[in-house]
């Protein structure tokens, strides 16, 4: 076969494009890896450990949930189709659906406090079209209600059901609102903010402070000497559905 000059140049150009595209894809891919894995030196990753043994002993206790909802003006809407929740008690089999066996099923009716997992690789952030939700460098998955357009993609993406939508005006369901925190309005999605406004003042989250048994421990997961890390290295802890790859920052001590 005789290769004309024209064909030779054509093949050459094609190969150059192929090699260039490969390099580009590789570069983009490794940049993404760096972003998600990242260096943890000097970087905070706020997390929480919940001691379920203590919660079990205080069956029916919802002080954490109440403190959270009061602090952040979360409405108490009786209609379950419209309810808004940041931190609440959920049935054990709903929280850990793939970790049930014949014997744990006997424990049905037992509840687990759940909240936004502030994932390391949050699905909600990936789908938000307006960047109204994003991940801060300290690990908090934040919401900017000013930017939320109410499309609810994040609610569909979150595998933990941590987000609520304001189908109705929340204000009539508030009682006396806490003047130090805004309310929300119809048409925006909301969720736990890990008490970022309290963290900025150097305080612990409201739920942690409200728990009389200190069942919730909050701290920096990147700091090997933090109380939360000490706790996690001493006791067996589970995350909610870690196989999904979101990397929850809430740990449950079983």
């Amino acid at each position: 076969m005789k290769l004309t000059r024209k064909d030779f140049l054509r093949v050459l150009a094609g190969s150059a494009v192929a090699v260039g595209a490969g390099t580009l894809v590789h570069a983009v891919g490794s940049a993404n890896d760096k972003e998600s894995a990242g260096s943890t030196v000097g970087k905070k990753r706020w997390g929480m450990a919940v001691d379920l043994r203590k919660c079990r002993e205080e069956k029916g206790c919802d002080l954490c949930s109440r403190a959270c909802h009061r602090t952040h003006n979360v409405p108490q809407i009786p209609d379950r189709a419209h309810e808004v929740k940041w931190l609440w008690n959920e049935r054990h089999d709903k929280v850990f659906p793939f970790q049930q066996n014949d014997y744990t099923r006997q424990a049905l009716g037992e509840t687990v406090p759940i909240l936004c997992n502030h994932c390391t690789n949050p699905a909600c952030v990936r789908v938000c079209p307006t960047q109204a939700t994003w991940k801060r460098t300290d690990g908090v998955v934040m919401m900017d209600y000013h930017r939320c357009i109410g499309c609810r993609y994040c609610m569909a993406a979150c595998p933990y059901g941590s987000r609520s939508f304001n189908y109705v005006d929340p204000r009539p369901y508030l009682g006396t609102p806490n003047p130090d925190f805004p309310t929300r309005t119809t048409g925006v999605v909301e969720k736990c903010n890990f008490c970022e406004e309290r963290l900025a003042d150097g305080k612990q989250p409201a739920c942690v402070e409200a728990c009389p048994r200190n069942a919730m421990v909050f701290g920096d997961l990147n700091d090997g000497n933090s109380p939360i890390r000490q706790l996690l290295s001493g006791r067996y802890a589970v995350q909610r559905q870690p196989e999904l790859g979101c990397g929850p920052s809430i740990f449950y001590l079983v």
Partner: protein
Amino acid sequence: MGDRPLIYAGLFLFVALVTLPVWQGIAAQSSTVGPELKAPAHKKQCVAPRAYMREAHMELLMAWRDGKVRKHERHYTAADGTVYNVSLTGTCLTQCHGSKEKFCDRCHEYAGVSAPNCWGCHTSPPAEPGGVAAVAAGGMR
């Protein structure tokens, strides 16, 4: 010639209709002077000069909003070095301007500005001067 009264009546009616807004204004005793905003007694200076705030308070508020929510900027340093806590309800209203009804709404209504949607979420201190009194008593957070 016989049409003269008709023409004058028509002219009068026309002038009356065209100048109707003027008469309405006079009847309603409105004036071109805007609402008089009371400066808070205990503070001499706003976070920025008065003229700038009058023209561009919305831009400052947007910058505060984005800075606080998205960039972790929770404090604002004014030109004179005073540091303010970035908060619409906590700083602007509770410390100086009282309430949305007494401060924001009066000018916005006068200027025919469509109401900004801040108040869908942010709360206004009670319209009574209780908010300001609480500050004086040190009860503000």
